[in-house]
């Protein structure tokens, strides 16, 4: 509490009398920054719950026998983990927390286009979350997060409908956010903020919103159809009633493959910001990175059949889906190459956000390349539904989305709270996350290739060493997630005031105070330069003036 030189009138500041008025000022706020904080708290809560379920799964897998729980309880544990992590953490996390906070700030707007719809999206998120949690409390679901029919529609006797209702409602929360971003980015850019001056974070959020708005309704209807079949016995997916279970997979993956890009594209946006700032360089190939986001968004709609190579899908369909899946590698590789080209001859400082960004690049490359293995029909048939798949998507989701989220959270934390966190602990925990992550999931590639199927709680003894390694890694990973909670909360009390622009970064969000005032800018900013307008010689000047202990 020694140094409290934070700006006086900020979005966090209240002059409301009494506790109830204070609570109301948060729960009924239409300020995008406050809604982002509400999302931050609730999404992190769900992350911890999903992590708890993962812990249960990993502990069971320490021994080859099913000695901790029955197969039935195990099914419910991994389903809970999957449903919470996918629908209530990975999909909303970056758009709803960082996007909500930063989209208006980065384009020089006072708020999102529809502030009330923004608040509604948070309530829908919470409402959906309560449904999903009540399903868990009332006995859980055992279908897996994919709700495959005919098991989910006919045979499962667990709380399928409640969970589906939760995911369905949460879908509307996504749509509201996506709609808001699209309209805001089209209509509310500050004077001079042309499309090609937008930060890449905005481009990636625009691409993400496009996917959200076009794909989410499909999963909503699909889940509704499952509920209709369960409740009224209408034959949609059950062959005994004239339906087709594979139709479910088509509809489900039509959303859920693009959903992968809903999770990872905002992460790409974060990484572009971090790499440019901490290399002190104009990003290499701005237009290519921007358009590769759009290309991924569009191609992502054409590859869903790669989840169905063994589901009696026509072999010709598999062939085409496999080919288009390969094409997705092109825009993804463009991004990775451009980030590494940005690093080249940059003045790189290994601050906490940058450590996460560099970790992201490495892990995403592994996750992306194993995706190519899985996109090849012949290899996929061998490893379908094994731990190879589990390892692959955790490398993309955890190694990609979570690394980007943590990197972004650290990068914009001073802007959100006005205070700096402990840099030493930040660096340590970033390294712990990286090590723990690889130790958890790399053995799973080996396990899967050796034939360990996913979603089994009993396994042959020769797999034990790899499973124990994975569980040990998971506990290290957990420590890596807990440390930031502690020092970030500590920074709220004892953190040094950050100042407006602690990273010496470009971008409109750094031109206003930290934390920003309620209406973001005291006067509407006018943009005259491109994004990442670091002076060409910035890197060289930095390098020359650097001394041990220099801040940047």
């Amino acid at each position: 509490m020694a140094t409290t030189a934070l700006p006086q009138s900020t979005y966090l500041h209240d002059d409301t009398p009494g506790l109830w008025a204070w609570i109301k000022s948060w729960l009924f706020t239409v300020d995008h920054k406050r809604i982002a904080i509400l999302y931050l708290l609730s999404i992190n809560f769900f992350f911890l719950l999903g992590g708890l379920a993962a812990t249960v799964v990993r502990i069971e897998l320490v021994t080859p026998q099913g000695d901790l729980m029955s197969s039935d309880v195990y099914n419910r544990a991994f389903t809970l983990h999957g449903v919470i992590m996918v629908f209530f953490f990975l999909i909303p996390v970056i758009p709803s927390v960082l996007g909500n906070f930063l989209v208006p700030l980065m384009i020089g707007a006072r708020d999102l286009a529809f502030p009330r719809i923004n608040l509604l999206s948070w309530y829908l998120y919470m409402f959906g979350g309560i449904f999903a949690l009540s399903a868990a409390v009332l006995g859980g679901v055992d279908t897996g997060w994919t709700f495959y029919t005919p098991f989910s529609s006919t045979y499962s006797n667990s709380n399928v409908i409640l969970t589906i209702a939760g995911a369905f409602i949460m879908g509307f929360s996504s749509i509201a956010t996506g709609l808001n971003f699209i309209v805001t980015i089209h209509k509310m850019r500050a004077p001079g903020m042309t499309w090609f001056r937008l930060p890449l974070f905005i481009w990636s959020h625009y691409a993400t919103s496009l996917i959200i708005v076009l794909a989410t309704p499909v999963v909503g209807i699909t889940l509704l159809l499952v509920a209709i079949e369960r409740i009224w016995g209408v034959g949609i997916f059950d062959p005994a009633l004239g339906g087709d279970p594979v139709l479910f997979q088509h509809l489900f993956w039509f959303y859920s493959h693009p959903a992968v890009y809903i999770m990872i594209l905002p992460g790409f946006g974060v990484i572009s910001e971090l790499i440019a700032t901490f290399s002190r360089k104009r990003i290499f190939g701005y237009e290519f990175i921007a358009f590769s986001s759009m290309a991924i968004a569009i191609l992502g709609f054409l590859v869903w059949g790669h989840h169905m190579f063994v589901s009696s899908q026509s072999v010709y369909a598999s062939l085409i889906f496999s080919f288009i899946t390969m094409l997705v590698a092109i825009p993804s590789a463009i991004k990775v190459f451009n980030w590494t080209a940005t690093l080249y001859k940059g003045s790189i400082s290994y601050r906490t956000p940058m450590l996460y960004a560099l970790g992201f690049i490495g892990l995403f490359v592994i996750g992306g390349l194993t995706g190519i293995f899985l996109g090849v029909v012949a290899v996929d048939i061998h490893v379908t539904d094994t731990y190879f798949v589990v390892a692959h998507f955790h490398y993309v989701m955890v190694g990609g989305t979570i690394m980007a989220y943590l990197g972004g959270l650290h990068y914009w934390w001073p802007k959100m709270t006005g205070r700096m966190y402990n840099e030493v602990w930040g660096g340590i925990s970033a390294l712990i996350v990286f090590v723990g992550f690889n130790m958890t999931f790399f053995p799973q590639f080996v396990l899967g290739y050796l034939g360990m199927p996913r979603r089994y709680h009993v396994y042959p003894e020769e797999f034990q060493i790899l499973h124990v390694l994975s569980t040990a890694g998971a506990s290290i990973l957990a420590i890596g997630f807990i440390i930031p909670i502690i020092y970030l909360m500590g920074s709220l009390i004892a953190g040094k005031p950050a100042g407006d622009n602690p990273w010496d970064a470009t971008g409109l969000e750094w031109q206003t105070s930290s934390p920003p005032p309620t209406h973001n800018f005291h006067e509407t900013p006018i943009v005259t330069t491109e994004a990442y307008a670091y002076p060409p010689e910035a890197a060289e000047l930095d390098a020359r003036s650097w001394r041990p202990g220099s801040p940047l």
Partner: protein
Amino acid sequence: MATTNPTHSADGHGAGTHDEHAHGHIGRGTYFRVFGALMVLMILTVVAFYVEPLLGFNRLVGVIIAMAIACTKTALIVLYFMHIKISERITQLYAAASFVGFALLVIIVMIDYFARGWPPAPGPLP
């Protein structure tokens, strides 16, 4: 498409007072006429269902007729009730994009169904 639409100005809506509506306005009369058309089309669907067997139509023809009527109704709702007819270009683009997405879903799924079992899968080994 995104030009002003002055054909329905004789109503009490205060056309053109908001700038969002600068691209045109749909009068109350039009809404009622569209609603009437939708009702007529709905009755037509039901009538077709009962009349087609009497005329000895193939079931496929029946499906095509029902789909044609349904598409007409969708077009009316999208153009008038959802204001796409008088919206900005970008809104029209998004509406078109959602149809393209939907068409991709239906066409690709149908291709898969059509091509199932080509070539015939080898049965269980003897």
